[in-house]
Every structure is written in C-alpha cells, then in structure tokens.
C-alpha cells in the first residue's frame, strides 16, 4: 500500500475521522488510523479519564467502542469513501479476540491494513500485556497474520526494557510494518485531594513530553529491523514530523496534537513540503532514516 503523503492521524485521537470533516477536507491526509475496535461493545473506563501533565496528558479511555460488528455495519459504510487510507486499530483481551476482529476487518474492501494494538496500557487484560513480552508478541502477531491477508501493522508499547527485541519478535510473527510508540505508563496525583487524578490511577502519557523517548525508539528499531516504521509520539508540527522521518519513520502519525489544534495535520503536510523545498530535497522519501550520525 502507498500513502499520498506521510502524514496520518493516530488511533484514539481522531475518532473515525467524521468529526474532523467539520474542520477540513480529509482527502488532504495520507491516512487515518481509526479508534480501537474490539470483539464486542466496551464501555471503557470510568470518568475522569484524563489529566494534564507538563507538555503532555494522561488518558485512560480503556478502548471504549461499540465492537467490530457495529464497526462493520454502522461505521464502515460512513467512512469507506473518505478520499484517504483508512486503517483500523485492532484491540482485544485474548488472542482469539484479536483474531476474530482481524478476520472481520479482512472482509472490508476499503480497509487496506490493520494496526494491531498490543500496547494499550489502559485495560486490565490484554493490551499492553501482549506487547511487553517478546514471546507473546510473536504469538499474537502470528495468529493474526494467519487470518489477515492485507497489510499487517503492529503497534508497540514503549514500556519495555528493549524495544528492538520486541520489534524483532513482532517481525518474526509476520508483521509488515511497525508502529511506535503507544503511550508511556504514567500517573498524576492531585495533591490537594490526595487522590489520583484519573479513575484508573495510572494511564497513558502522550504529547511532546514523550517525543525524546519516541524518537529514540524509532531510531533503535530502524537500526534493528528491515520493515517500514510508522513513527509517532508528541509530534506537534512539521519539524517534529521531520525528526521522526530522519530517525527512520516512513510515515508519521499525529495524535494528541489534534486536541490542541484541529487543523494541525494539514499544517504539518504543508510544513514538510516547505522543508523539502528549502533543502532542495526531491521527495519526503529521501529523508527517511537519513540522520547523519558521523
């Protein structure tokens, strides 16, 4: 599959795209990674689900969604004709659930790829548990690979000792593309009430605060594996996006930044083009992994 440009939007930060039609033409985007889809309806975690932190935020949404059946029947028909690539973020609590969802999405003609979310820190079972141990990461990837015939992306958790080890395990499982990073596990406390700010105590940290960690992981994985990388984590502007591409990302995702500026994704597309012009670089492809280290 190809993207018309390297700028896409991150799962959980862009809904199913529909809300952003009120702001701009979605056809401008390279692609949209829609909100996590699970086997059946999930109410998600209790309110409050977020906390603001220095240059970032914690969330604990907990995969709220109406399930894959609803996705296929209600949501898919509304979004399949967006003039951009739609990738479904597939989540679950068991390998069977991941497989079941992937099988159903496999049938949808308008969806060229799935992004296997083995890195959600905000659900009790499943999610991140799969993504932090190499053997289970391989196992769930392989199980989905067996049933999913199109492009299989796997989204990695940064909450690990060695991201390249996990990346290799997922490549062993048959992934075509790696997405990194999901959120860092964090916590916020209200000193006045002496209580955690979010209902689940801990949640996922996103935003510019995590950019240095994300860039480092993209770089480490870029050196460790040969498949393409979708990079994200704190991208707020074109400069950030370019840094992720230099570190080895073929495509980038914009997540939390959508909350600060709903127009940010088109602005990043423009900014990358200006950068390429200014540096006399023919194509965005030419800066992928082009970091000069000596």
């Amino acid at each position: 599959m190809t993207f018309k440009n390297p700028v896409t939007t991150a799962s959980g930060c862009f809904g199913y795209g529909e809300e952003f039609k009120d702001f701009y033409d979605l056809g401008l985007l390279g692609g949209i990674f829609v909100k996590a889809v699970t086997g059946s309806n999930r109410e998600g975690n209790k309110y409050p689900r977020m906390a603001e932190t220095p240059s970032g935020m914690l969330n604990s949404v907990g995969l709220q969604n109406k399930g894959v059946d609803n996705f296929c029947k209600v949501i898919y028909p509304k979004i399949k004709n967006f003039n951009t690539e739609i990738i479904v973020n597939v989540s679950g609590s068991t390998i069977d659930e991941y497989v079941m969802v992937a099988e159903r999405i496999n049938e949808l003609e308008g969806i060229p790829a799935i992004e296997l979310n083995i890195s959600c820190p905000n659900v009790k079972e499943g999610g991140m548990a799969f993504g932090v141990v190499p053997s289970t990461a391989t196992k769930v990837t392989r199980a989905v690979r067996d049933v999913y015939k199109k492009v299989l992306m796997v989204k990695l958790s940064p909450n690990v000792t060695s991201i390249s080890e996990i990346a290799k395990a997922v490549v062993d499982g048959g992934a075509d593309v790696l997405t990194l990073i999901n959120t860092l596990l964090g916590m916020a406390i209200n000193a006045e009430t002496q209580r955690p700010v979010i209902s689940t105590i801990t949640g996922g940290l996103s935003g510019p605060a995590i950019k240095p960690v994300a860039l480092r992981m993209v770089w480490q994985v870029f050196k460790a594996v040969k498949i393409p990388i979708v990079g994200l984590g704190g991208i707020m502007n074109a400069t950030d996006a370019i840094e992720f591409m230099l570190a080895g990302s073929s495509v980038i995702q914009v997540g939390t930044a959508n909350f600060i500026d709903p127009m940010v994704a088109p602005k990043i597309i423009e900014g990358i083009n200006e950068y390429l012009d200014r540096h006399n670089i023919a194509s965005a492809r030419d800066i992928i992994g082009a970091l000069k280290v000596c």
Partner: protein
Amino acid sequence: MKKFAHDFKVVTNNRLNTRHFVLELQAALPLPEILPGQFVQVLVHNSPPTFLRRPFSIHFVDYAKNTLRLLVQVKGEGSRHMGLLQTGDNLNLVYPLGNAFSVPSSNKVLLVGGGAGVAPLMFMGDYLNRKNLRPDFLVGFRSGDEVSQIDEYSKYGKVFLSTDDGSMGEKGFVTQHSVFKQTPLPYDRIYCCGPDAMMHAVSKLAAEKGVPCEVSLENFMACGYGVCLCCIVQTDKGNERTCIEGPVFDAARLKWQSNG
C-alpha cells in the same frame, strides 16, 4: 455543523470581582450561527503549564459587533493567564462546540445558574427574548461581592438572587430559594448550569416537582470535539460525550453518582 479554529482579538477584559472577569472577543471573519449552551475551546498561549485547551461556555454573542463573550472564573493557571489578556491581544478559539439548550415552547422558563455557571444563561436570555420569550433567572453567588451583571440579566427577564452567606438576595443555596418553595412550580422547564453538586440538587428538586430540567455539564475535556472520549458521562444510553451529545443533557437521563 462547521467548526473553526480562529484567532480572536480581545476587545475588552472586564474584571467583575477578584475571581471573575468577562472577555469580549472579536472574530476576523463573520461569526457563524451560535446557539446558547455551546462552548469554545481556548488555547492559552504562552502559559507553560497549560498544554491542553480550556473549555468555556459562550456567555454572549453580539453579531452586530461580530464578538462573543466569555465569563471566566479564575481557577488555575489557564484562567489566571486569560485574566492577564489585554485589548488587542490574540486568543485562539475552536468553536462553536457542543449541542445547545432546547428551545422552550412557553414563557414559563427558569434559568438557574451558580458562580461562573451563569455564563451561558445571559446568552440564553437574549436568545429567548429574540424569540419573544421572557425567562426568569435564579442566580446564586458565594457572597455579595461576587454578585455582578444583575442589571444585564434583568434586561432579559426577572432575576431572583441568592448568596451563600446572605449578604445579598436570599441566604443559602439556589435550591433553598423561595422560588423553589412554590407548589406547583410555575415553570414548564428549568435550565441549569453551575457546580456539579448544584446541578444535581436542582435536577432532583425539578424531578420531585415534575418539571423537566436541562443541565449543562462541565466535565474535563481534552479535545472538545468528540474524538478523545475523555469527557464521557453515564446516561441512560451508556457513556455519552459531554462535548458532542452535551454539554446540555436532560437531567433525567444522567446517572449522577458515577460522574467524577
């Protein structure tokens, strides 16, 4: 409905009292249609601890001047910083967001607000007047020195006043005001905005008196336009988004206990 992210110019920043101020903000392009109950997401520039936008109800819309107003209570860094804005400064807003109060079919309407929660009621009063309806207002403040803009509200309808300490109007919470002592309540609908505890109390009272009640929630928000699922409230339909399905909800549909 089309939404925008635009810079507005600060026309005036009027201090009402130590904790509250009103910003009048002018748009560069003609304002779209805005409904009472809707809100904006404010980008607090240059305040290092303020990463996310801050939601504020639309306090008033003046299409002739192409301005809208926000009534802001100083809570933390974001609102404190907004209080420092001066005429001519820019402020970026995402707007108009959320649903709106329903349009009542009769004159017999009570608008209940507490503290900064009165913000959307001014706009609602003006809106109802334009539809040839005159609501009653019941507004509560902590104490007399926070009471403000009563003359303004009076333009749009009769105003009942209460303060927690009794220094102006009737003493006590709005739910203790004599307006609510009437049986039956002479209203077909109540609209309420204020602290959670107040909205809960008002909606309970309204239910007891058999009067439909709408409340405007102030749940914490990340995006404000429906994509992050952080602002959810439990209703009879499960989790709904305060920023899209709300902020205005029929009070009878809410499961209060679980809300924060």
